[in-house]
C-alpha cells in the first residue's frame, strides 16, 4: 500500500496529546476515530473524560427514542472504555431514569471517578444508587433532578471540592450533614429547594451560591468565604416568620465572613438582611469586599436602605456597586423620611475606593434620589454613575435629573450617565 500522500502526520504524537485532542471533540467523533487506521483503533478508549449530551445520537423528534438511544450509547462506550475515568458528564433533557444509570455509577465508582455531573430529564427523578457514596476520589459532584439519600454511616467525600445540588430531593439534615462531612469543600451551590433552613459548616468554603425558598440561612462556620450569591424566594409563611424573628439576620449571615470579596443578593435577600438591622451595631469590617450587587431592593423600606448603607460603609475597599430597585412602589406612599437621611449624613465616612456605580430600575422616588446624592457626596474617586430608570415617566425622571444636577460631587471625574429606555 503505497504512501502516495506522505508519511502519517499525527499517529505518532504522544498518547497524552492524542487523548487531549480527543477530549476536545464531541464524544461521538472521538469514538469514530477507532476506524481510522489500525493505530487509531483503541486510541480513544483510554480518554479520561466522557461528556455526553443529546447530540451524541442522531436527531429525532421522538424524545423517548432519543433518551433510549443516549442510554444505549453511553452503556456501549463504557463497555469499550478502558482505564480510569476522571470526568463523567451527562446533561440530557430527554434521558429518563432507567436501571442502566445504576450500572454506570457503579462502574464509575470502580474507576477513580473524580468529577461527576448528572443532569437528567424532566420525568421521574432518578434515585442515585449507593455506589455513588463509594466514589472516594470524588472532587466535584453536580446533580440535578434526582433523589439523593446518603446512608447513615456515610463518612463524607474526603476529597470533594465542589458540590452542586439542583432540584434534588434530599432531606435537609442530609444536606447539612453532607456539607459538613466534606472538609475540603470550597464551592457549594444549592438551588430550588423548598422551605429549607440551612446551617452551613464548611471550614474551607470559598464560594457559596444559593437559590430557593430558604427559611433561614446560617453561616455558622465558613470563615473563608470569598464569594456569596443568594437568591431568596419568599412565600407568605416565610415572610411572616421573618417579621416575628428577633434575630439580626445581618449579623447571623454576614457576621462570620470577614474575607468576603463579592456579595450578590437577589429577590428577598436584602429584605432578609434587613430584619433586626437597626437594633445592633455591626462589628466587622469587610476589607476585601470590592463588589456588591443587590437586586430588588425596596427603597420604600428604610431598613433595606440601611442594609445597603451599612454594607458600603463597612467595606472600605469597595470598588463596584450595583443596586437594582423594586418597581412596586405605589405613588402615594412617596412621603420621604428625610430624618433618616439626615441621621445618616452625620457619620462622615467616605467611600474612598468606590469607582463604579450602577443603579437600575429606578422609579425616581425620593429615597432613591437621596441615595444617589449620598453617593455623589461621599465618593471622592467615583468615575461613573449609571442610572437606568424603570419607567420613562417624564415627571419623575425630570425630578431625578434636576436633583442630580444640583448635587455637589466629591469626585471631579464623576460622570453621571442617564439611560433612556
Amino acid at each position, binding site marked *: 500500500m503505497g504512501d502516495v500522500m506522505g508519511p502519517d502526520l499525527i499517529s505518532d504524537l504522544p498518547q497524552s496529546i492524542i487523548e487531549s485532542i480527543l477530549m476536545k471533540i464531541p464524544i*461521538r467523533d472521538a469514538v469514530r476515530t477507532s476506524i481510522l*487506521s489500525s*493505530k487509531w483503533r483503541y486510541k480513544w478508549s483510554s480518554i479520561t473524560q466522557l461528556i455526553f449530551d443529546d447530540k451524541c445520537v442522531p436527531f429525532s423528534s421522538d424524545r423517548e427514542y432519543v433518551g433510549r438511544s443516549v442510554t444505549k450509547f453511553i452503556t456501549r462506550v463504557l463497555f469499550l472504555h478502558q482505564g480510569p475515568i476522571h470526568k463523567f458528564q451527562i446533561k440530557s433533557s430527554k434521558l429518563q431514569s432507567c436501571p442502566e444509570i445504576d450500572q454506570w455509577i457503579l462502574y464509575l465508582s470502580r474507576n477513580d471517578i473524580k468529577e461527576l455531573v448528572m443532569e437528567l430529564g424532566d420525568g421521574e427523578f432518578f434515585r442515585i444508587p449507593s455506589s455513588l457514596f463509594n466514589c472516594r476520589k470524588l472532587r466535584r459532584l453536580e446533580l440535578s433532578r434526582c433523589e439523593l439519600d446518603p446512608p447513615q454511616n456515610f463518612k463524607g467525600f474526603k476529597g470533594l471540592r465542589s458540590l452542586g445540588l439542583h432540584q434534588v430531593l434530599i432531606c435537609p439534615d442530609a444536606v447539612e450533614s453532607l456539607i459538613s462531612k466534606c472538609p475540603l469543600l470550597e464551592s457549594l451551590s444549592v438551588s430550588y429547594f423548598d422551605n429549607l433552613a440551612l446551617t452551613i459548616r464548611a471550614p474551607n468554603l470559598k464560594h457559596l451560591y444559593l437559590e430557593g425558598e430558604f427559611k433561614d440561612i446560617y453561616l455558622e462556620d465558613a470563615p473563608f468565604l470569598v464569594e456569596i450569591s443568594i437568591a431568596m424566594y419568599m412565600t407568605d409563611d416565610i415572610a411572616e416568620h421573618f417579621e416575628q424573628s428577633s434575630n439580626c439576620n445581618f449579623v447571623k449571615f454576614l457576621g462570620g465572613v470577614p474575607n468576603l470579596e463579592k456579595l450578590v443578593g437577589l429577590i428577598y435577600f436584602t429584605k432578609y438582611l434587613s430584619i433586626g438591622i437597626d437594633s445592633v451595631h455591626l462589628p466587622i469590617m469587610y476589607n476585601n469586599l470590592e463588589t456588591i450587587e443587590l437586586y430588588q431592593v425596596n427603597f420604600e423600606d428604610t431598613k433595606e436602605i440601611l442594609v445597603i448603607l451599612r454594607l458600603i460603609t463597612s467595606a472600605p475597599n469597595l470598588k463596584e456597586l450595583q443596586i437594582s430597585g423594586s418597581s412596586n412602589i405605589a405613588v402615594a406612599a412617596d412621603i420621604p423620611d428625610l430624618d433618616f437621611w439626615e441621621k445618616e449624613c452625620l457619620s462622615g465616612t467616605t467611600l474612598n475606593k468606590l469607582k463604579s456605580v450602577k443603579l437600575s430600575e429606578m422609579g425616581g422616588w425620593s429615597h432613591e434620589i437621596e441615595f444617589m446624592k449620598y453617593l455623589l457626596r461621599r465618593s471622592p474617586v467615583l468615575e461613573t454613575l449609571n442610572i437606568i430608570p424603570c419607567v420613562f415617566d417624564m415627571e419623575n425622571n425630570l425630578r431625578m435629573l434636576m436633583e442630580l444636577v444640583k448635587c455637589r460631587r466629591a469626585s471631579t471625574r464623576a460622570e453621571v450617565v442617564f439611560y433612556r429606555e
Partner: protein
Amino acid sequence: MSDAAMEVVKPEMKSYIWLQTADGSIQQVEEEVAMFCPMICQEVLQTGMGFSKAYAISLPQRVNPAILGLILDYCRFHLVSGRSNKEHKTFDEKFIRMDIKKLCELTSAADSLQLKPLVDLTSRALARIIEGKSPEEIRETFHLPDDLTEEEKLEPLRNITDDPHIRLLNRLYARKRKELKERKKLKDVEVEEEPKDERSVEDLLSFINGADGDTKEARTNKNKKKNRRRKDHSKDLSSKNAHENDTELNPLPCSYHNGNFDNALEASASKHSRMQNLPAVNFSPKFEFIDGDIDDDLDPAMKEELDREVEDFARRLNSDWPERMQILSLGQDRRLLPISMNSNGSTHMYTSFDQR
C-alpha cells in the same frame, strides 16, 4: 545560517542562552525567551549549561530549527506582561494558522519542551480540524493508512451507535461478510476440481474447432447409441431449460460484480467442467449426457448457481464470433483464464486470478 553569523557578539545588555537542535545547528536565544520553556529552564538550572556555544543545551529530537523558531516567536510574545487577554487571543489565532504537517510538528515539539499553553493551543487547533470530518476526510488530512480489515472496521460500528444509516450499512456489511464466506467456500470447491478444468475446455474447443469436420460419422454412430438415453433425459432437460430460461433474465447475483468477479469466475470456470455433460439450449445434441449423480454432492444453492453458470457459458458460446475467438485463444494457454462479462454485455479478460 552559518556558524560565523551565529558567533557575532551581541550587545552586553541582554543575556543569551545557546540551544542546539538535533541536526547539530546551534542558535543563540535571549535568555528570557528561552527560559519561558520549562524544559529549557529546568536544563539550565540543573546543569548550569547553556551560557556558551560550546555548552549549548541539547533540545529534544522532535524540535527542528524551523519549529524552534515558531516556538520562540510564541514565547517572545507571551512573556511580555500587561497585554490584554484579547491581544493574546488574537495573536494565538493568527499564530496557529499553518499547514497540518507543521501543526503536528509544532504540537510534538511544544510537548517535548513542556510548553503547556502552546500544547493546549495546538491541540485545540487539531481538535477543530478533526471535529465533524468523516473518517475518509480525516485519513486524507493526516495521511493515515486505511489498514483495517473490513471486519475490524465493522466491529466498532456495530457496538457504538444506533444511527439508522449505520444500521443499514451493518446490514449490507453482514451480507457482504456472508458473501466473503461463500467465496471462501467456493474457492475450496474449485481447488478440488482444478485438474479437471483444462481437459474440459480443450474438449469444448476441439468440439468447436472440429464442429463441421471429421467426426460426422462418429457422431452419427454416437447418436444412435445416445438417442435413447437422450429421450429419457429430454424431459429433465426441458424442464431444466425452462427453469434456466426463467433465471436467464435475472441479473447476475450481486456477488459476481466487479471485485468479486475473478473468484466468481473461477467458480464458474470450474463449473464449465460440467459443460460437456449438460446440454444447453442451442447446443448440438451430440454431447454426452451424464447421470445426475455428480450433482448430488452439492447443495441446492450451489446447484442453482451451477445451472446459471452453465446457462451463461452457453449464451456466450453461441454469441458473437469475437467472443468465441477469445475463448479459443484462452484455450491455447494451459492455464484457464476467466472471461468477465460486464452488465452491458461487453466482455474483457482478466489475466490473473488474483486481485488482492
